[in-house]
């Protein structure tokens, strides 16, 4: 039992440090900022309730990202989420090139979208992504390769990209 005064410092720190990462990964999953923020909030509440113990900051971030992905999946499965027809997120304020890239990535299947986000936004390696997604590194490598191929077909480029293994 703890009160507001005893709000864990680590939770507050996590809120400062990782909230944007969590919102962005949830956005990559749900394609909607409002839903993404809701998921991120739920993750922090879970963090507060469960108070998991971490070895280090990276471990903590990985846990938060993993939990965000799980909660995003859960939200996708809910009936109300499936039944609604949301207005696409307005990204017109972004420069055209950025907007096009973002739209192209969001248009990919989530199987490819999430590894690409984790790699290109968070800068995780294939092995790290494999650990977060609880998959084999080879599988993650395949997802990244296919995702890139699909993006190349759509937009061109990617030849100069290298994936850190």
């Amino acid at each position, binding site marked *: *039992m*703890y*009160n*507001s005064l005893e*709000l864990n410092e680590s*939770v*507050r720190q996590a*809120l*400062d440090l990782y*909230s*944007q990462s969590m*919102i*962005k990964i949830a*956005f*990559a999953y749900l394609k909607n*900022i409002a839903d*993404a*923020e809701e998921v*991120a*909030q739920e993750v*922090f*509440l879970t963090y*507060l*309730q469960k108070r998991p113990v971490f070895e280090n900051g990276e471990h903590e971030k990985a846990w938060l990202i993993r939990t965000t992905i799980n909660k995003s999946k859960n939200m996708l499965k809910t009936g109300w989420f499936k039944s609604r027809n949301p207005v696409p*997120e307005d*990204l017109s*304020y*972004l420069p055209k*090139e*950025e*907007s096009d*890239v*973002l739209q*192209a*990535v969001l248009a990919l299947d989530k199987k490819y979208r999430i590894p*690409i*986000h984790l790699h*290109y*936004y968070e800068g995780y390696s294939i092995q790290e992504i494999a650990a977060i997604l609880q998959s084999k590194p080879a599988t993650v490598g395949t997802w990244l390769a296919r995702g*890139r191929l699909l*993006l*190349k077909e759509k*937009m061109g*480029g*990617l030849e*100069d*990209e290298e994936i850190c293994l």
Partner: protein
Amino acid sequence: MKKSVYKSAMSRVKTSDDFKEATYQKMMSDIEKTTQTTNINHKERFKMEKANKKKLTGWTVGIAACAVLSFSILTMNQNAPTGTPQPTAGIVQAPTSGKVAVNIDGVISEVSADGKSFKVGDLWVKVTADTKLGIDGPTAAEPSEELLQKEFKVGNIVSGFTSGDVSTGEVTADAIYNNIAPQNDEAANPPAKGKAAVNIDGVISEVSADGNSFKVGDLWVTVTPDTELGIGGPTAAAPSEELLQKEFKVGNFVSGFTTEDVSSGKVTATNIYNNMAPAQ
């Protein structure tokens, strides 16, 4: 795609400015809720005890109030008159003026020697030359001997009316509509004759050793050579083994009738329409 483009795009995606603050507030309220949960349990128990006490007090007061009310009502009713209220003696109803017509309807029980008077109930009715006989008017039926006989005889049904004072026991009829002779001869209404038939319908529960009798409900039915089997008539279906099996077996559904007295518990079937094996 260059790494920097995607990262830059994602970084520029706008999020709520107050996300951190809102999340922080939510976490605070969540903590408060968790803290209050245990306190609520204690409070609820205390409230329950208090509520029970209040309930008991309420019931006691209610029952006491009912008792007081019942006593008051009984006390007040003792002073009230017990019987039905008598009409006020001071009020005298004015006598009805004008002529009153009284119906004459009934069976003649006595006829005078001259045949001009008859008795219906306790009233002697005299028929004079002024008495109107029959029914007139545009819709009246043709006068007939059957409905208006010339002679008044004992047993005849008469109807009409008088304006005389019936309390004297003797009046003159103003009109006689009908004077109908009773239909009591057997030729007119012959008594009903013939036998009563009783249906035999049900499932055979028992069959006699010889196979000629079976039990349906509480009734034993015997089938003799005189029993007519099947359904006759021009519209009857062709006889079939399915509808009328040769043997009577337990579980078969039979239908028919008997003209014998079923109260004896044993009858001979007059007709058996169907003897069907149960559906498999």
